[in-house]
């Protein structure tokens, strides 16, 4: 099938099998390797990307479902040249170790902050509960998202 998907603001086209997973379209067809494949069953969230602004698990989304839609991946977070505050927060608060879950976590966290710029810890925990991490025990991820919330707010105030 011929599909046209806008990925990170750029139009992409592909002739794909209807069964092709979105994660493979991004990773193999487009070479966007920041989106990871972790579990096949929507449980781990390593493959989280945005579809029309909403986080989805790209391992259980077909590429054809994205036809005519907007996809955003981790590679777009620092598109302006500067790191997104949520990326900076993960660095500052040690919100990552092996880095494999990180792109999915970042996309989930960015979506949360766009909807709720000042979430408390409980809200953050609920928001990231569809993203598994085996390294951090989550505490520093919560702190990283808080860091992003606080520093985004500071920038606005400044």
């Amino acid at each position, binding site marked *: 099938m011929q599909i046209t998907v806008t990925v990170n603001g750029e139009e992409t086209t592909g002739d794909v*099998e209807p*069964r*092709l997973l979105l994660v*493979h379209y991004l*990773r*193999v067809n487009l*070479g*966007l*390797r*920041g*989106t*990871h*494949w*972790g*579990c*096949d*069953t929507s*449980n*781990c969230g*390593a493959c989280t990307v945005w579809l029309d602004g909403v986080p989805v698990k790209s391992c259980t989304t077909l590429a054809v479902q994205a036809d005519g839609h907007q996809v955003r*991946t*981790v*590679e777009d*977070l*620092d598109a302006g040249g500067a*790191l997104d505050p949520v*990326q*900076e927060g*993960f*660095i*500052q608060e*040690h919100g*990552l*170790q*092996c*880095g*494999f*879950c*990180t*792109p999915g976590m*970042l996309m989930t966290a960015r979506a949360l902050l766009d909807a709720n710029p000042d979430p408390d*810890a409980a809200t*953050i*925990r*609920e928001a*990231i*509960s*569809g*993203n*598994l*991490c*085996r*390294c*951090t*025990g*989550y*505490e*520093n*991820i*919560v702190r990283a998202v808080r860091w992003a919330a606080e520093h985004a707010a500071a920038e606005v105030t400044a």
Partner: protein
Amino acid sequence: MTTVEAPLSTAGNPIGFGRMIRKEDARFVRGQGNYVDDINLPGMLHGAVLRSPYAHARIVSIDTTAAAAQPKVRAVITGKILETLNLAWMPTLSGDVQSVLATDKVRFQGQEVAFVVAEDLYAARDALELIDVEYEPLPPVVDARKALAADAPLIRDDLEGRTDNKIYDWEAGDAELCDEVFARAEVVVAEDIVYPRVHPAPMETCGSVAHMDKVTGKLTIWTTTQAPHAHRTLYAIVAGLPEHKIQVISPDIGGGFGNKVGIYPGYVCSIVGSIVTGAAVKWVEDRSENLMSTSFARDYHMHGEIAATREGKILGLRVNVLADHGAFNGVAQPTKFPAGFFHIFTGSYDYPAAHCKVTAVYSNKAPGGVAYACSFRITEAAYLVERMVDCLAFELHIDPAELRMKNLLRPEQFPYTTPTGWEYDSGDYPRALRESMRIAGYEELRREQAERRANPSDTTPLMGIGLSFFTEGVGAGPRKHMDILGLGMADGCELRVHPTGKAQLRLSVQTQGQGHETTFAQIVSHVTGIPPEDIEVIHGDTDNTPFGLGTYGSRSTPVSGAAAAVAAQRVKEKARIVAGAALECSPDDLEWEHGRWHVKGDPEQGKTMQELAMTAHGALELPEGVEGHLDASVVYNPPNLTYPFGAYICVVDVDPQTGVVTVRRFIAVDDCGPRINPMIVEGQVHGGLADGVGMALMEVMAFDEDGNHLGGSFMDYLLPTSMECPSWELGETVTPSPHHPIGAKGVGESATVGSPAAIVNAVLDALQIRQADMPLTPASVWRAMQGRPIRPDLAVE
């Protein structure tokens, strides 16, 4: 000695120890990590493994005709083809053999049967469906307790002369002394305790990209390995390839936890696929393959007995273990210790009598056993002793904190030789326990619990407080006592300081998220004064790093960290000689301050490390016998293990109507010696505590009576999320290792070792019962509350 605040470099990083953001993170937060599945080579093909649907079955025939006829399929490899290459079987890390692709029988569900190489992953997977395998099902051994029954099916009929499923009997300690002590003890408490089969389940599954260059004869394999050098040697042995023509590259690794220590059939198949097709072949397993076929952990069925006085003075501990090793004995551990370091089970307490006997058996389950941050089975040992101490406290009606304090080793007893022969190097255990109780507000917690118990209701959560105190033993060797398949457990390290004073450090160990690129730069910085941002850490590539045994058993800092410190010390001492030549004085007249050698009493007359690096590479005449340049190469053979320890307290609430456990608080006081980067240490502890929540409350690899795996996806094998984990509360004490160059002890596995017992003890304290096995799922807790505890690892009762 405590961690001293280091001066900052111009980039704002500590010159030496201290909190420093990680060098690794810049690439990871941009999605620019380079994991095995990110490796793409021109013309690369894709492999997929056909796996057995049966736990135990004879292979009657395999017909690959239809699969091989598919247009995108380039090769279909079976065990019969591997036999012609003498590759159908490979050695395991425990001196057994393991089937690469099954030839005679399949021995666990998920075992590798055939390998398809195709132009893309989808085509490879499609072709698997077209392979026709005729199986003749055989009765499986699922319950380890039945593996040695007279009528048990023989699993390993491939091994000549074998008539039963026993792998070994092994014991440690003094059985006779135990008999004496137990016979006259006032109190003996016995308990059956299962540490169920669990899985490390790193977020990245296992995989490899193999490329055999037919012209040069060189094999390059990018692979998920925690031990690239050991793998290179093993590939040389397995495949008969010349070792100097093998390059193992371990790129970024998405978590290991022991899952990526061994060599899996898929890796070997990708190599064979490349040899057969002439192209590079990528194989990356999916999650079900990871959970069903790669190295599990634990599966220890323990019977413990603890002897004590009525006042609670522990006199002895003995344990019988039935160990389920799966279909092949593939455990990764030092050769002398078939049960790993389980015989450290005497724990952190002072008593004379101890004995353990471990019987290992084959079963129709995946091989493995030493994984999941277990420190070579210290997880099982720590869980056993900490549960037995709580069982004793339960029977004696003594507060478990008081009972522990009464029996902990005292600081003046170190170095302390345990009844089973370990020499604990250092420790102040009562201080760590007191610190954890202070942070927890232990007395106040017990008061709150008493109030709740005095006013119970159907809806008031049952409150439980659980403790554990663990002693870890990490940093294997020494090499004279510890080897894996004959490879001594020592690690090399090379430090090169370039003329401009920038440095490269080459390590044999391999990070899987622990932050080696940062921590090891800080170790060198601490010794040499070179800013950490000027030190590049190179690892995970056998062509570009010195030999060593790799990262597992929390051995990176204790072994390679020591190697890096010694290399840095040698560089610093050489710089002193160079400084003496440059300043025209004796090196003995120089002293070191802030990254600079200067003349004693005349700080103006000095040279920085950077100036000395240029001088060392320059034209200055150096003293007789002193070569130029500023490099050092070290092989570090540890004189002993290091022994980190910790005191953990967990507070849980149990819903009396549903059995749901909520971890309300978790306090972890760890002593790993000086903390090179406290931020990274805390992150390591956080991760291990989450492992504890997973194992204590959620994770189990269960099987039905036919040997069907009931945990083959993350829908069934439950990992803790952000919702199950509390906000961890950490504390520290610092007792440096006396034999490690910088006193550091390693911390990667401490929390995984120490935390499960604290959580289980807390839940059982809430229920006011003595014993129930992990995982304490709502169903399991509810059944325990009804007085009908279950075996969560078996689907059958």
